[in-house]
């Protein structure tokens, strides 16, 4: 999103300073959020989320796998993001690698918790079928269809919606086979288990333009940023991950202030998302 004239740049910066952005929003207001669940029938769970002109899809696929020998009581969760060239021509070929890798790493940091698994949005112990032998591998794939800023928050919201849409098939382990190295399992295609997604955090990116910070920046606004901080916060108000994106240095008191602003915003966003997700689920069930 380059090619802005000096006048346009000053207009964006001036608007943010006066708490009236180019699309009429205040600094801490989100664009309209649209959530649709169950968009990919082949996946165990999926969701499409739109923040204004930003459009992303997340899908969750579960496969039977073996737990890591170091952590026999935990299933594995993999997150991967790709950017489609339909969103922007620069994503064609290998052009999306840099953006995709950055989004993937940040999402992993924000959703999967520490090395020991503490603080993860998805409890990895709930994915184990037989300890040390059989577990579910959860593949979470994000896809950027249309990009107009704030990709990370949209992907975070889409993953949250997709996880609450996910049903993991019930698994029966043959009783006499539990001693074997590779026990035989019977995967039910009728009974599904729902995830507890109350612990999944939301990601809030605060973009600093001039002396102020804004949420849900559009592509144009992002081109004027001096720096941005993405903070993932759960229901308890705890920080589950944080990462600073490029640009200039920040005073540490500014970062602490950003964290408190993000916590305030996160409550509203969590409530908004939860109601949107349940509304989307209700629509899906009617069909």
């Amino acid at each position: 999103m380059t090619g802005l004239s000096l006048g346009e740049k000053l207009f964006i910066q001036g608007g943010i300073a006066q708490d009236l952005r180019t699309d009429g929003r205040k600094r801490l207001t989100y664009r309209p959020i649209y959530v649709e669940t169950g968009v990919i029938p082949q996946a165990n769970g999926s969701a499409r989320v739109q923040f204004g002109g930003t459009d992303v899809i997340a899908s969750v696929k579960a496969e039977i796998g073996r737990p890591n020998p170091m952590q026999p009581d935990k299933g594995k969760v993999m997150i991967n993001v790709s950017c489609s060239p339909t969103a922007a021509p620069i994503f064609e070929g290998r052009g999306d690698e840099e953006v995709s890798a950055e989004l993937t790493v940040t999402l992993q940091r924000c959703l999967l918790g520490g090395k020991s698994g503490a603080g993860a949005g998805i409890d990895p112990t709930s994915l184990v079928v037989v300890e040390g032998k059989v577990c579910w591998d959860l593949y979470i794939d994000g896809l950027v269809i249309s990009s107009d800023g704030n990709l990370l928050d949209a992907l975070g919201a889409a993953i949250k919606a997709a996880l609450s849409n996910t049903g993991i098939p019930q698994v029966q382990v043959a009783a006499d086979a539990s001693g074997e190295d590779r026990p035989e399992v019977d995967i039910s295609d009728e009974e599904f288990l729902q995830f507890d997604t109350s612990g999944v955090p939301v990601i809030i990116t605060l973009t600093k333009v001039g002396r102020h910070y804004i949420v849900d920046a559009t592509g144009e606004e992002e081109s004027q940023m001096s720096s941005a901080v993405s903070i993932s916060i759960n229901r308890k108000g705890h920080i589950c991950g944080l990462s600073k994106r490029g640009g200039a240095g920040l005073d540490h008191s500014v970062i602490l202030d950003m964290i408190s602003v993000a916590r305030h915003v996160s409550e509203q966003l969590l409530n908004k998302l939860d109601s949107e997700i349940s509304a989307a689920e209700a629509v899906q069930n009617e069909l």
Partner: protein
Amino acid sequence: MTGKGSATPATYSPSPTSRKGKPPAYKDGDLNWARPDGRGFQQCRPAYFRTGAVNAASGSAYVEIGNTKVIVSVFGPRESKKAMKYSDIGRLNCNVSYTSFSTPVRGQQLDHKEYSSMLHKALEGAIILESFPKTTVDVFALVLESGGSDLPIVISCASLALADAGIMMYDLVASVSVYSLGVNLVIDPISEEESYQDGSLLISYMPSRKEVTQLTVTGEWSTDKINEAMNICLDACGKLGEIMRMCLKEAASVSSEVNLGRPGGRLKGLQGA
């Protein structure tokens, strides 16, 4: 052959399972556990810095902190590739690589792909990119031995190498990480500790300007804990910055002589907060 093979004791092989599978000294609720190398919770490892490690580079630095050994070379500024668009500010190109013998098991360096972009982010806020328009500066980091806290050490070393190369910067960047385990905050983890942490926090900081250039957090943290961890890190970064500055000063003062001395400081018993 087979019978003999089974009778003789197994040949030595540094198996990762036997090392990492060792139960940590820490147990839930236990406040007084000891770190594997006997340090205090808020005590950094001794640091040794030295500039001018590579003759061919415009600037270079070598850092040894505990078992972690890193070498960084800076090349340029050179003309940007023709394919690049015109840019009135300079470009920074960063790359972090590991030697194949840097870890106990050969070729086991996993997910370090993001280190290059994280190094870039930590440095770009400190470099005055306007001072070399249309050109590119290359920063190549090589981790000779991975002993934990690799990324913060790479960042500190890279900023020293940039200073050695005479690239204009606002300030040196010192970087430190802490990890949380139970209720404790522990600074400058070694590899063994990194594998069982509950959460980690990494700060890159410009001590004189008092600005944070990069901050990443994983795991679940309350605000108070983040605050405490940040203060510990900032304090340690300040002290690390002093040592880096000392190393640069010494290198400058002995530059007329043959540079055989050890221009570097020893950091012992660095106490946080």
